[in-house]
């Protein structure tokens, strides 16, 4: 099995706010994240598979690049995630929830090999890894 990783960046804004909480509760639970603010997100997408004997590729990187452009960049780059990304409607757009949405968008689109891991950096010091149930978390890092 070979693991191939492609990295992209997108910039987006968000705020953490639960309408079921009072203003004080939102402030207490979410702190500064209760204010609208933004990040330069870095996304690493890892696809696992065997290289095709003819092309030597797990999948064509051009194809992966187009999938990432269409599913992630076009949806999320320079957007306010709470209001402009329908897949996040009704959810707090934390790194956990955004990574899970990205996993669900990409997983059915990867036709060669299979999606192994989605790693989303909110900052260089905070990231979330998303794995499928069958992949386990113990594979390539």
């Amino acid at each position, binding site marked *: 099995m070979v693991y191939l990783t492609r990295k992209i960046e997108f910039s987006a804004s968000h705020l953490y706010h639960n309408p079921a909480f009072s203003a004080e509760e939102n402030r207490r639970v979410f702190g500064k994240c209760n204010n609208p603010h933004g990040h330069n997100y870095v996304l690493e997408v890892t696809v696992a598979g065997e290289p095709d004997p003819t092309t030597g590729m797990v999948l064509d990187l051009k194809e992966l690049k187009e999938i990432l452009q269409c599913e992630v960049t076009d949806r999320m780059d320079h957007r306010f995630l709470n209001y402009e990304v329908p897949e996040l409607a009704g*959810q707090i757009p934390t*790194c*956990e929830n955004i990574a899970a949405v990205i996993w669900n968008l990409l997983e059915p689109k990867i036709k060669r090999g299979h999606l192994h891991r989605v790693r989303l950096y909110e900052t260089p*010091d905070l990231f979330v890894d*998303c*794995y499928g149930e069958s992949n386990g978390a113990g594979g390539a890092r």
Partner: protein
Amino acid sequence: MKLHLTRRYRFAASHRLHSDTLGEAENWRVYGKCNNPYGHGHNYVVEVAMSGPVDPSTGMIANLTDLDAFVEREVIEPFDHTYLNEDVPEFRSRVPTSENLCLEIFRRLRTFPHATLERVRLEETGLNSFEYAGEPGGSTK
């Protein structure tokens, strides 16, 4: 789908690699300049990976305020700007290699009450890193 939340922390500390069970010449042969009697230091980076269900009311595996406070209390405050061999009781009888430091950090962080500790990755320098994810079945060394 499985999610791991990872946060990076930093501390600076000094240490000396020296085993009381080895003679002077043997210590020098095994540890080289790391056996310098006056010790030396590093800027350590610790990556802490946590897993658990995402709380739908917050969108989070763990509130970073809780995680940061816990890591600060258990690791950063006791380790930062210390001489590990003398200032951290566990290293009075154990060589403070980065392997042992990684195990000790894992041991200290596994009691975090709000999520499950998956992995500790310790960078001693930008070129060396060490990882520990516990033993199969959830025990630790």
